[in-house]
């Protein structure tokens, strides 16, 4: 795992190596300084040697400058390496995501991908920086301090060794227990916040049913519960401080007592004892630091795993070896197609589908939710690959086409469609970036989008906000249709793309299609029977099968499902949409 992540370092390998080197330099300076300090006291002050004090003082300054240079170097290199790693990880993930097929995208979900690209990368960046700067420093500092202590006096230094071992055991036990408690607390804490979220978004329901007091008492109970749990978890953590200071104090006392005896018997100088006491702090601080690093590593482990999942994901749809780069015509055929989103776990979503659509035909598709209408059309532009059978466009298996060619010739307006932040011109030009203003306007006119665009203060230069937040649902759908039309495709697929457009405009768009692009094969999925009854032929989908494929009149006569839908919408009971979104 570590290897995978570090594999993305590339040009930041050198700073990654220099950082710990610098940090060790800083540690060495830090270690030498107490010795010099001890000498100043010992030899300089006790020996009343002013020259010695000044000489050692100057030496100390030199060492301090060296430490400063190393420290600054460590800071700069460490920052470069960690932010650089973050940059490379983001890029590697983003590039790979762009190769993802629809099933890859479904697997991760957009929210999941966003978290991986943002929070998870930040986690890695922070812990990498921490590890580079501290992981070497803390053990190095501890070992050097330990070695120095042993050089000064092995007898006294062994006190440290025992203290460190004891503390390490205690810290590990506490951390273990605390992380378990905290995990529990944070799960509960998330739940509490979820309930707040629920209240914020459902505030109208709360107020309409006058349930403010009820919600308050529910929240109060939950908040008290969280409080108890936090207190329990923190009680363990707060033991840390007293245990640490306690150990430091015990060490100081032992060293003072034993050291005093040694000084008296001439085995130790006063200066050496002072140095020893300084190392005491160094050793225990490093231990503390190490425990923090462990926590950080465990925390970032999950992030690293999630990032690697994205980097390792292989696209499930690849371009063929010798791709065909021309689509002959807009004819479509399905031959014994079976399809499921997850081959192992579920029964097929499409079962033995056979279809034959001639180039230039207008086909309507109708059926209940979950009858796999969208699935059917998504196979045509090879957004998913079939499990069995073949899908042919222009007489050729879609798997043999160059994907870009196929998708430019088979233009889909997805059910969940989005616009991107940018002007209307920019958004429509997604269909063809070299299109002239004239062509863009023509496409908009075909999609009946021109009428509202021209009414906007800036016309085609109007800025669309992220997700198209500043246009209405119907307007958004029309812009998406215009964008798809600009490709001048041989096959145009509208997946429930006029549901928010009023009936009159809907009819107008269909009329424009019939008149302006007669040779384009058009597939229209709709809930409203009025949207499709004028089509050449209509496919009735039911539970992954084609229940009927015929003209409106014939279906009315022979197809029960179609008749049922027709009756409920247009017939006697008169339940058609009363659509008011003009």
């Amino acid at each position, binding site marked *: 795992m570590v290897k995978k992540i570090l594999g993305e370092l590339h040009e930041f390998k050198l700073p990654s190596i220099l950082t710990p080197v610098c940090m060790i330099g800083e540690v060495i300076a830090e270690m030498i300084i107490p010795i010099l300090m001890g000498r100043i006291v010992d030899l300089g*002050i006790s020996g009343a040697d002013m020259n010695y004090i000044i000489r050692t003082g100057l030496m100390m300054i030199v060492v301090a400058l060296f430490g400063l240079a190393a420290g600054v170097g460590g800071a700069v290199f460490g920052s470069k390496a960690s932010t650089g790693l973050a940059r490379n990880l983001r890029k590697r993930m983003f590039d790979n995501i762009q190769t993802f097929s629809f099933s890859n995208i479904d697997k991760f979900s957009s929210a999941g991908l966003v978290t991986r690209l943002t929070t998870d990368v930040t986690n890695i960046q922070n812990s990498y920086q921490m590890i580079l700067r501290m992981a070497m420093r803390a053990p190095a500092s501890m070992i050097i301090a330990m070695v120095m202590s042993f050089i000064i006096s092995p007898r006294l230094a062994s006190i440290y060794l025992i203290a460190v071992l004891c503390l390490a055991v205690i810290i590990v036990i506490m951390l273990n227990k605390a992380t378990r408690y905290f995990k529990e607390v944070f799960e509960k804490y998330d739940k509490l*916040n979820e309930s707040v979220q629920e209240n914020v978004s459902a505030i109208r329901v709360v107020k309409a049913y006058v349930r403010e007091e009820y919600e308050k008492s529910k929240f109060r109970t939950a908040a008290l519960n969280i409080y108890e749990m936090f207190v329990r978890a923190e009680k363990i953590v707060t033991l840390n401080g007293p245990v640490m200071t306690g150990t430091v104090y015990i060490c100081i006392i032992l060293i003072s007592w034993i050291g005093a005896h040694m000084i008296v018997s001439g085995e130790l100088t006063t200066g050496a004892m002072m140095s020893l006491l300084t190392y005491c702090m160094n050793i225990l601080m490093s231990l503390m630091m190490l425990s923090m690093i462990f926590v950080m590593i465990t925390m970032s482990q999950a992030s690293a795993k999630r990032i690697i999942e994205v980097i390792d994901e292989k696209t499930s749809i690849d371009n063929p070896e010798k791709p065909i780069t021309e689509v002959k015509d807009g004819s479509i055929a399905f031959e014994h197609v079976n399809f499921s989103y997850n081959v192992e776990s579920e029964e097929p979503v499409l079962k033995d589908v056979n279809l034959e659509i001639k180039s230039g035909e207008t086909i309507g598709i109708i059926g209940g939710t979950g009858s796999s209408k969208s699935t059917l059309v998504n196979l045509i532009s090879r957004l998913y690959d079939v499990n069995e059978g073949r899908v042919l466009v222009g007489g050729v298996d879609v798997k043999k086409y160059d994907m870009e060619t196929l998708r430019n010739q088979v233009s889909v307006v997805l059910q969940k469609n989005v616009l991107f932040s940018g002007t209307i011109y920019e958004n429509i030009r997604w269909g063809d970036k070299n299109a002239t203003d004239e062509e863009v306007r023509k496409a908009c006119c075909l999609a009946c989008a021109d009428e509202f665009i021209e009414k906007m203060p800036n016309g085609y230069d109007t800025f669309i906000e992220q997700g198209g937040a500043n246009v209405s649902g119907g307007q958004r759908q029309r812009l998406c249709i215009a964008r798809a039309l600009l490709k001048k495709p041989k096959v145009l697929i509208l997946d429930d793309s006029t549901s928010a457009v009023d009936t009159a405009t809907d009819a107008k768009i269909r009329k424009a299609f019939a008149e302006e692009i007669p040779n384009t094969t058009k597939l229209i999925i709709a809930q409203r029977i009025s949207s499709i009854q004028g089509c050449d032929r209509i496919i009735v989908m039911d539970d992954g099968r084609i229940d009927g494929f015929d003209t409106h009149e014939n279906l009315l006569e022979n197809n029960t499902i179609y008749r049922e839908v027709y009756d409920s919408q247009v017939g006697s009971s008169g339940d058609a949409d009363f659509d008011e979104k003009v």
Partner: protein
Amino acid sequence: MAEEKIKEVRGPGQRPGRGAPRPDIENPGALFKRIMGYVLKDYTLHLVIVIACIILTVVASVQGTLFTKTLIDSYITPLIGQANPDYGPLANAIGRVVMFYALGVVASFIQARLMIFVGQGTLRNLRIELFEHMESLPIKYFDTHAHGDIMSIYTNDIDTLRQMISMSLPQLLNSAITIVSVFVSMLVLSIPLTIVTIAMVGVTLFVTAKTTKVSGKNFVDQQRNIGTLNGYIEEIMTGQKVVKVFCHEDEVINKFDELNEELYQSAYKANAFANILMPIVAQIGNLSYVICAIIGGAIALNQYLGFTVGGLASFLTFNKSFSMPINQVSMQFNSIIMALAGAERIFKLIDEKPETDDGYVMLVNAKEENGQIVESEEFTGHWAWKHYHKAEGTTTYQPMEGDVTFNDVDFGYTDEKMVLHNILLHAKPGQKVALVGSTGAGKTTITNLINRFYDIQDGKIRYDNININKIKKADLRKSLGMVLQDTHLFTGTVADNIRYGKLDATDEEVKAAAKLANAHGFIKRLPEGYNTMLTGDGANLSQGQRQLLAIARAAIANPPVLILDEATSSIDTRTEKIVQDGMDKLMHGRTTFVIAHRLSTVKNSDCIVVLEQGRIVEMGTHEELLELKQRYYQLYTGNKPDMVSA
């Protein structure tokens, strides 16, 4: 008189968001004081003990430092060279120090323990106050604030405040006390050396301020670039399928690379500047040590002012332990500023004006006695409005029927822009009123006024001939049922969710309501029936099923007046039929205001109200309006009127 009072309350000063005291981040002192107010409210004693413990801890550690001096000067040096050294005095001294240390450890333990209660307890209180206050806020607050922003108060802001109270605060106290006590000890040991040390601290602070300024600018850059890049990532990930369909991968990658590079550059600089601070400060500390050693050495060797070698040794330790707390304070500074900014947002929510309620007409259980309506203690199934007339000092009871009138109502969400003009409406008990019109015509707004989610600017709305401003809000809302287009369910069982409409409903009542709403069928088929847990707004149910539950929830409340917002398409025809049937059953016998999207609903209404730009343009039955061949005709047929006449 009551009328006057209401007018007064609705004066301009009452509108939320205006005139409310808002603490400024430029006034961190006041903010800090307010936070401390919360801490002190319940935990004054705790805090006093904590401060005492911190003082003990600091004294213990200062004693420890001084001990080195005494140890060397008074106990070790005299022993050197003695043939039979007497360790007795040394043992005594060490014994004393052991006591100090033990005291220090115990004190630091008590302090840490108590701070848990202070920190977590304060947060618990704050959290509860925040939530309870939020529940009391008017709908307007939720409509004008992004839900993500409100949520971030509970998650981010409370969290930073938690860190400040439980970590920064004790550390600050500790640092402050250490600084003072070390300073005093230094002064006692040597005044000239103290001046030198203070001067070096000045240098440290100066350098810190300079570096922080540069890194601050870089941090702002970094934050901005993170924002841009994350925004771009979110946008593209949401639209990733569209990117694929349009083969736009390369363009997207190019833009991403550009933003990614910008972020890297600024992040690198921001981090580097922040990180160099630590080594710089540490080395200035060492410099200070050397200078003190040299000057101190000179003084000690020349025996000025009775300054001893041991004294110098102690002073140098103090010198080291003086710069440490100062660095700590400067490091805590950032987190404190962040916590204060968070606290500002928390207090802003707490300072929002809650929904006011001056209603005095109450809804009571009623029964008939000798042809007179009287109040009843127990549930009778009949309700009446209890109306107290102040002028006459009498109380009248009036049966609740569900008669709603709008009399020349004007309304705007802000005073500047009116969205409803001269609305005149009368819904008699049991009538169905359909509101139709294009998006933004004001349909939803009308329904928001009946239950007083918003208050009108002019005109009157009457419920059973009582001005709704006189009715207690809770009672008014209890008498109105609501089924919205976006159904919101709560975490809990299916039965809990239905029972939301009537908390003390029996299992039979729940079942009956579900049956009425056509929800019983699907609930039976759920793995655990009525006890199935729903989470995440009923994510495990289909949209149609969620709607059925919302209808059942309204049915169990059994209100005389209903506000319905029909769902726009996207449910398939079969489910829609079931939902529609449920709604129809619910509407039966109740006064209903329905924001209609379905032809059958509109056709079967007693009154169709066609709205356009906040005005009623047509009103009447289906046949009457078709006859007019105006706006309704156009909506109904999808043809423009002039096209027909032509």
